[in-house]
């Protein structure tokens, strides 16, 4: 695989450069390899062996991509960039695809593949026999069972809640090459997305220099790169969306009809995008076009009704009715700023696309059209408890809007280009992380993110609280909007990296200090024997409270400040705990209850031990009162 990757990376410069530039690119590649080998040899000499060789190799591969990207940005002219970037995407995705097999298919992926298997082998959508013989399935998931609420038939048929269009698209790839072929189908859509996106950016008047500077981050960066090599409908949907937008803008029915059809067929929720797009399609059109557009929107409802017996499948119309305003606020800020599922931390380039909304009048018309088309979908998504995507790689529900955000980011580039280097460094980090350890793309929605968890475990201090969480709202979530506002005001600052350096220094300083809230299930809490509640892979775990289930003799250790705390707990019987050397008798509390506990003397390091002396208790969190 390493050799294949090296060959592909060696081919890549030929896609973009000729003559001297090609020679320079190839020399740079060789220089990087020489540098890497030199470092490798020297690392052995000085005893620097505390790193994962696999991650180091992935890092070198990504560094090669970075070098080529820098040269692409620096080149004076690049003819036909759409095709070149598409070829580059094809090559890179072909290299990244096998890396994802380090972990089994996860989330919705095995279910999509199971439907494909059923179509290929049984020519139907009934998965009952597939579940019975799950060991023979190519999903590699012998533990797979139907998802909660999956439709069933009158004769014991078992259907998937997932729309069959994506599995249908994967059939040729699967028949030819098995699971890699099925995933390659999605990667092919990723390539098409890249080509269409460059074309669209050109159509909307984005300069060649901006396209050359930003496209590598979009093509090879998150979230596109991760969704392009896994089985999710998001990347095909993004391709269909951008094609639909291009079709509408160009008033070309032969472009928007198939694009809109495929988009709504991929996932029922994408009908909401289609519904918003239709008025723009119909402007000044005849009745036939209107009828066609509505027929396209109705088709997925019909298909879903035929499969599941309900036009809305596992959803209800009630989900479209506005609910509590606070949920919208939480979802909106969460999608933008959440440490685990927000654009700012998972694909920071596209934050520029959000900022572009503030300059609505000056944005390209395509951006405005795309933003309006996204409106109903986003408004419906925000109050959902699963706005963060659930068990999936980050940004699942908004990958479809990446083309629009990319156009916004491109339009904002000239104003914000000083921020590109810090954004690029963060993006490189995410890319290396996701390629080297694909299983980490999935993270339980517990309010922590991978970096926070990692630092907390390493430093034995609560670093997770430094990242804003709207899944489990924390203080950082309140501060984060103000920080973003400051960033908007500082968008023209010439030295953003120094701002980042100061922020990082403060981050590490305060991260090592005890916080005012101790979430007991967080990574910084060192547990001894206690049992996690609910268990890690509980469906919709994010709707539960809880942390550790402690019995007599179990203990937790964490950093805390001196003072008075409110302890949130549940217990089916009275319990006694020892907190920092003081015993507390807790009443029975079948539902979650609060009680005040004092920590009058904490040692200088701030480490406190909580022991269960009697009974059993479910500990949620502890909030400081003063």
């Amino acid at each position, binding site marked *: 695989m390493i050799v294949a990757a090296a060959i592909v990376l060696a081919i890549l410069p030929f896609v973009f450069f000729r003559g001297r530039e090609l020679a320079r690119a190839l020399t740079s590649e060789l220089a990087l390899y020489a540098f890497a080998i030199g470092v490798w040899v*020297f690392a052995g*000499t000085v005893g620097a062996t505390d790193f994962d060789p696999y991650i180091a190799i992935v890092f070198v591969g990504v560094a090669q991509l970075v070098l080529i990207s820098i040269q692409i940005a620096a080149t004076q002219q690049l003819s036909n960039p759409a095709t070149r970037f598409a070829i580059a995407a094809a090559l890179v995705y072909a290299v990244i695809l096998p890396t994802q097999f380090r972990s089994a298919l996860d989330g919705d992926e095995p279910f999509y593949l199971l439907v494909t298997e059923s179509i290929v082998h049984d020519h139907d959508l009934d998965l009952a026999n597939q579940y019975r013989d799950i060991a023979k399935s190519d999903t590699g998931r012998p533990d797979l069972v139907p998802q909660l609420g999956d439709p069933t038939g009158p004769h014991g048929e078992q259907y998937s809640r997932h729309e069959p269009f994506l599995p249908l698209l994967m059939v040729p790839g699967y028949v030819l090459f098995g699971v890699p072929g099925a995933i390659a189908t999605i990667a092919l859509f990723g390539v098409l997305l890249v080509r269409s996106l460059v074309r669209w950016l050109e159509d909307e008047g984005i300069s060649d220099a901006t396209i050359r500077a930003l496209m590598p981050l979009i093509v090879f960066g998150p979230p596109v790169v991760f969704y392009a090599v896994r089985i999710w409908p998001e990347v095909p949907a993004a391709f269909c969306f951008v094609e639909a937008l291009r079709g509408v803008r160009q008033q070309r029915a032969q472009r928007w009809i198939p694009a809109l059809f495929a988009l709504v067929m991929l996932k029922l929720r994408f009908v909401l995008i289609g519904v918003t797009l239709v008025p723009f399609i119909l402007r000044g059109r005849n009745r036939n076009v209107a009828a066609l557009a509505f027929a396209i929107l109705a088709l997925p409802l019909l298909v879903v009704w035929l499969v599941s017996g309900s036009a809305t499948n596992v959803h209800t119309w009630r989900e479209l009715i506005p609910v509590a305003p606070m949920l919208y606020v939480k979802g909106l800020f969460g999608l933008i700023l959440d440490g685990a599922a927000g654009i700012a931390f998972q694909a920071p380039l596209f934050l520029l696309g959000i900022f572009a909304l503030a300059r609505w009048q000056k944005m390209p018309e395509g951006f405005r059209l795309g933003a309006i088309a996204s409106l109903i979908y986003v408004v419906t998504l925000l109050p959902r408890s699963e706005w963060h995507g659930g068990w999936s790689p980050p940004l699942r529900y908004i990958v479809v809007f990446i083309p629009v955000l990319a156009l916004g980011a491109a339009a904002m580039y000239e104003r914000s280009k000083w921020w590109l*280097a810090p954004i690029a460094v963060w993006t490189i980090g995410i890319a290396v992380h996701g390629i080297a350890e694909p299983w980490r793309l999935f993270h339980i929605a517990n309010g922590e993110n991978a970096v926070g968890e990692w630092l907390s475990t*390493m430093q034995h201090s609560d670093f997770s609280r430094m990242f804003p969480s709207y899944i489990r709202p924390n203080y950082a979530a309140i501060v984060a909007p103000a920080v973003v506002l400051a960033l908007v005001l500082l968008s023209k600052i010439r030295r953003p990296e*120094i701002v980042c350096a100061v922020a*990082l220094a403060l981050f590490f300083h305060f991260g090592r200090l005890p916080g005012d809230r101790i979430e007991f299930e967080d990574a910084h809490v060192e547990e001894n024997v206690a049992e996690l509640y609910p268990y890690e892979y509980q469906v919709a775990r994010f709707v539960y409270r809880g942390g550790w289930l402690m019995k007599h003799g179990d203990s937790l250790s964490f950093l805390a400040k001196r003072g008075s705390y409110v302890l949130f707990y549940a217990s089916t019987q009275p319990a006694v705990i020892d907190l920092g050397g003081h015993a507390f008798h807790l009443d029975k509390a079948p539902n979650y209850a609060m009680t005040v506990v004092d920590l009058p003397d904490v040692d200088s390091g701030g480490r406190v031990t909580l022991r269960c002396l009697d009974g059993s208790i479910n500990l949620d969190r502890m909030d400081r009162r003063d």
Partner: protein
Amino acid sequence: MPDRRSLVIAVVAAIVAALACAASVQFATPVDRALPFLAVVVVVLAFFRPAIGVAVPVLIAVENVIADEPTRLLVIGIVMAIAFAFASGRAWIIALLAALLLRWIPFHNVVIWRELIILAGALAVAYVMQGATFAVLLALFCPVWPAKIAVMLFVIAIIAAFQLRRVKGSNVVVALIIAFFPWSGLMARGWGAFLRPPHQGNRQYVGQALKPGSTTTIDVPADAKAVIVSGANVQHLPCGTILGTLNGNPIIAPDWGFMRREQFFASRNCYPRNPAGRIRDYGWSAWIDGAERIVLPRGTRTIRVDVNPRLPKEATLQVEAFE
């Protein structure tokens, strides 16, 4: 020429970056403590190519997240190397920064007047050649003991630089050298370590220093497979000098401290063939002790060491340990 506003911004940025880095120092090695200085170097490089400035937050992150010392220092070196790889601007500035990085850490070991000679020479070479590569190589390898040699070398180098003006340098070479600045002394004086890295096993220390003509017999511990020896006050002896015999076989070992920066230029010793030393100190002061490993034949129960009586009288053969 940069305008005054850019200069002021750069100075403020350098101060802020240095303060942020100073607040982030977590470890006590001279390289870690030099983090504010590294930040200033980065900000100066970023003056000509702003994107390089992103190395400052990366340095802070590295300092805070990598606990293993060699790995952390190597990664700091790589970050600085990447900054230099993309550096543009005046060659003499790059040469100056590189020379400071390579030779002025740890600062407490710097003999300022001697180092100023090297710095001036490196700047002159960079200025003449309009490139930093040759100057950086000279800055790395030039000894400061004795100072006369340093001066002479640089005079020759400057003259040579006029002849070599058409030779193009490479940022990659500079970057590769900078990557190892936390152990630049090793780069300068311990090239053999790249081919034969030193390693140490579990040791049972003996700690005997034997004078010329003396003999000793030592019981070999049950699980020992090798004996570790080195010389003392033998740095002037030529490479391959037999210091004594071990069960009749010749012992060839360098002086224990021949790789120290003060001793190296005057020494005639060679890097051990089976090195058992340890990397000591940091930056340009880094060196490896000259311990040599002699593998014992299987089943050896005792060793008899005879020290060469022809060695200078101040010389000793040190039997350090069994492995």
